């Protein structure tokens, strides 16, 4: 190949070719170089390359030329890494952008000896193509990742962060730029053990921006990039999901407990009634020591009944008799009923109740529930305070509420959470069964409403019963249960009630649509010499029972919790029904019978009656049944409003909705 041919080929090449001699003087400057540098061959040839292009002096090309000339080394030089290569413009008539070049420098020989060959490749088109490909490739990725609410973090196998999406920046309060190259443990210290990287799913407690903790579920994907393993961490905040799951677990537990206790209580109740009835029969036929013992059996059975009633109420297996209950009169009644219980240190205030707020509920059970709440409120305020009752329609149609707020000690979130569980109490051993609030919640739900507690340590408690509003054509509790039997909710477990309704009706003839039987009543009533001879009044004899109501309730002050009236005699029940305003509701006398352990406080008689009193014991029972039922209450477990005060009051008032 002649020199001419070689030069022609050089000039035809679609790349730059420059040859310099051992003095760095340009020996060859091909046409491509002329075209893109704007420097003619005449100007270039014979001139020191780095004098011609002073911007390149000291740069990478000069070093490579030196190595090639001095030592014989070759070099590749990439536009990716170097910014000061040949000042070449594309000159394609469209743009004046610089040529992205990759350069190969290698030693060669010239006629004068050692030389250096510089080859310059135009990479502009390739760069543009790569850029487009990359943009296409990453467009979908970024569309997904940047819009995601979950955190995406890419790390390499050493745990160094390579990238993160905006959700991550927000969640952890950092910027991708600042975190690039930093160890992932700065965000998630738990990933210190690198074996965790690569686990498909890791659940940890993470700390986000502002020190806010959250449950993080991290799923990891791993991928190879040019042989390097990378991990993409998808971090999801599952705090709410975990809370929901926990709530569900708690609800299921309470439901299971309810089913169990309800079933057991029901059967057990039946047995108690047999025991009691028989004990009363015995009582009517024996004297002395034996009678006292029989009386104790009767009392023990009554106490057992109180407990089972509480359980049934929690399990929502109490028969309900929903009627129209105007909340203003209901509150008025309960205020009067409760006044003696609350003591002088507790103020009670009632916010104005919008007229026409009428709930659809079992009046007696509602009164029980309210009384329970009032007693809890009282117990939460050992040094006195104020109870506020509010009631009115709810924002939701067909709903109304009645709420009891105290200024007492409040509850910690932990206590609040468990407050409606049966047998949970913060009161002293023996002062409550822990059934009060669970009953209230059970009643509210069974009535088609719900029950809410909100409380904060030191800031009091608000207990809200939400109920369905009564429709205009709903039955009215007009005091004549015989004539207008109210529609009832069917008992959930009909099996246990077989054949009992007739008994109930037999008892009083007006036991309401249906009630569990009160078989203990009057099995002996027809016997001469039993009731009359002992001077006790049958429980059903409300005319005799009534005067006792006037006595007021010094004894009831000792009562602590209230349970449904079901355990009382039907007469009491019907008395309530016959007195729509509940005005006949008295305090009653028999705290000691209701709550024997408290009777030592001087409010009544010892329940363990002696033979001297045995006749009266039955009386007590009878009047107790009356008064208790009239009150619509029996005394039962204590709910835990009175939890110890705590300094850890937080900003928001935790709420607990009874499951």
């Amino acid at each position, binding site marked *: 190949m002649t020199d001419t041919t070689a030069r022609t080929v050089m000039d035809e090449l679609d790349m730059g070719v420059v040859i310099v001699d051992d003095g760095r003087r340009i020996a060859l400057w091909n046409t491509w170089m002329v075209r893109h540098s704007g420097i003619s061959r005449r100007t270039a040839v014979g001139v020191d390359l780095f004098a011609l292009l002073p911007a390149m002096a000291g740069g990478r090309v000069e070093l490579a030329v030196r190595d090639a000339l001095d030592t014989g080394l070759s070099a590749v030089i990439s536009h990716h890494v170097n910014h000061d290569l040949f000042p070449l413009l594309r000159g394609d008539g469209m743009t004046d952008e610089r040529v992205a070049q990759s350069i190969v420098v290698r030693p060669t020989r010239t006629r004068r000896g050692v030389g250096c060959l510089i080859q310059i490749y135009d990479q502009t088109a390739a760069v543009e193509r790569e850029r487009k490909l990359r943009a296409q490739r990453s467009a979908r990725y970024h569309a997904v990742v940047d819009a995601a609410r979950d955190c995406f973090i890419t790390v390499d196998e050493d745990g160094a962060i390579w990238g993160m999406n905006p959700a991550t920046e927000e969640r952890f309060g950092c910027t991708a730029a600042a975190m690039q190259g930093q160890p992932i443990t700065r965000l998630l210290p738990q990933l210190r053990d690198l074996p965790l990287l690569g686990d498909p799913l890791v659940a940890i407690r993470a700390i986000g921006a502002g020190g806010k903790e959250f449950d993080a579920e991290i799923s990891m994907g791993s991928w190879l990039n040019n*042989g390097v393993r990378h991990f993409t961490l998808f971090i999801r905040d599952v705090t709410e999901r975990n809370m929901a799951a926990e709530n569900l677990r708690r609800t299921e537990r309470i439901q299971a407990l309810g089913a169990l206790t309800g079933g057991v209580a029901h059967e057990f109740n039946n047995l108690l009634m047999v025991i009691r009835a028989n004990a009363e029969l015995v009582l009517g036929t024996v004297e002395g020591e034996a009678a006292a013992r029989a009386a104790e059996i009767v009392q023990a059975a009554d106490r057992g009944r109180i407990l089972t009633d509480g359980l049934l109420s929690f399990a929502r297996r109490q028969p309900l008799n929903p009627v129209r209950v105007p909340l203003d009169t209901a509150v008025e009644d309960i205020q009067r009923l409760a006044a003696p219980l609350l003591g002088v240190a507790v103020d009670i205030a009632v916010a104005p109740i919008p007229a026409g707020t009428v709930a659809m509920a079992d009046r007696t059970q509602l009164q029980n529930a309210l009384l329970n709440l009032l007693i809890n409120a009282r117990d939460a305020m050992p040094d006195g305070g104020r109870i506020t009752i509010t009631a009115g329609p709810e924002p939701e149609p067909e709903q109304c509420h009645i709420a009891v707020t105290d200024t007492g000690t409040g509850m910690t979130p932990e206590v609040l959470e468990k407050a409606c569980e049966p047998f949970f109490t913060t009161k002293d051993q023996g002062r409550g069964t822990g059934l009060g609030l669970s009953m209230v919640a059970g009643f509210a739900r069974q009535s088609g409403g719900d029950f809410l507690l909100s409380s904060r340590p030191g800031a009091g408690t608000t207990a809200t019963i939400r109920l369905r509003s009564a429709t205009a054509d709903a039955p009215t509790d007009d005091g004549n249960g015989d004539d207008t039997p109210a529609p009832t909710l069917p008992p959930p477990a009909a099996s246990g009630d077989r054949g009992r309704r007739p008994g109930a009706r037999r008892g009083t003839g007006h036991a309401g649509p249906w009630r569990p039987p009160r078989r203990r009543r009057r099995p002996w009533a027809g016997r001469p010499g039993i009731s009359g001879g002992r001077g006790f009044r049958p429980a059903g004899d409300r005319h005799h029972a009534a005067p006792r109501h006037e006595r007021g309730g010094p004894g009831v002050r000792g009562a602590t919790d209230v349970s449904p009236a079901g355990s009382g005699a039907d007469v009491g029940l019907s008395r309530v029904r016959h007195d729509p305003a509940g005005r006949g509701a008295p305090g009653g006398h028999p705290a000691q019978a209701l709550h024997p352990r408290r009777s030592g406080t001087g409010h009544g008689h010892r329940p363990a009656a002696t033979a001297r009193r045995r006749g009266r014991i039955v009386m007590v029972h009878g009047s107790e049944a009356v008064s208790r039922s009239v009150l619509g209450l029996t005394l039962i477990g204590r709910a835990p409003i009175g939890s110890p005060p705590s300094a850890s009051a937080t900003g928001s008032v935790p709420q607990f909705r009874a499951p």
Partner: protein
Amino acid sequence: MLFDELERDAVTEMLNVAVSRSAAALSRMVGKPVAMSVPDVRAVSRAEALGTITGNRNTSLIAVGEQFSGPFSGRALLVFPEARSLHLVQAIVGEHLSLEEIADLEEDAMIEVGNVILNNCLSGIANMLGCRIEATLPHCFQGGGEQIFKRTIRDGDSGVILCTSIAFSIRDRDIGGFIILLMDLNAISNLRSAVARSVDGVRRGLPDPRNAP
């Protein structure tokens, strides 16, 4: 012992000068200070060299290799764990690029970085020996240590392997790698005598690398 202590120091010093010049070149490329150092040079067996570069872990490596020939011949390799190499590339090309972009540039950038470093080492050796060597264009190898060695430093190769670690510091990143020099026996004996001759020169001090062009 292939080298005595003084000779080893001399070779180490020579390579330090070489990488300092590389650092100056890279620093100019990157526009940020780059520091590089070679703590010591050891003559090792192939297996030892392999164990050193893999850290006895099955990590993926990236290597840039050049073959040289002339009065002495052999092969020069610059080896990084691949994860580190991405950091190195990121440090060189800038923090603004994403992982994917960096991965795309990795080979180009590594070849160039390796080229700069290895050329400086080779020219240092050539200067010391007072001869010219011809070196090929650099190639990039990826894979496990054994895979890379299979294609570069073969079992049957006679010669001596000089192995040294090399520590980079770019943009507050510390990135460690290795330089492996395979030299034939002729090259090693030439090197030894050249080292012996230039020990005095070493003592007088080589030109300050910051003044190097």
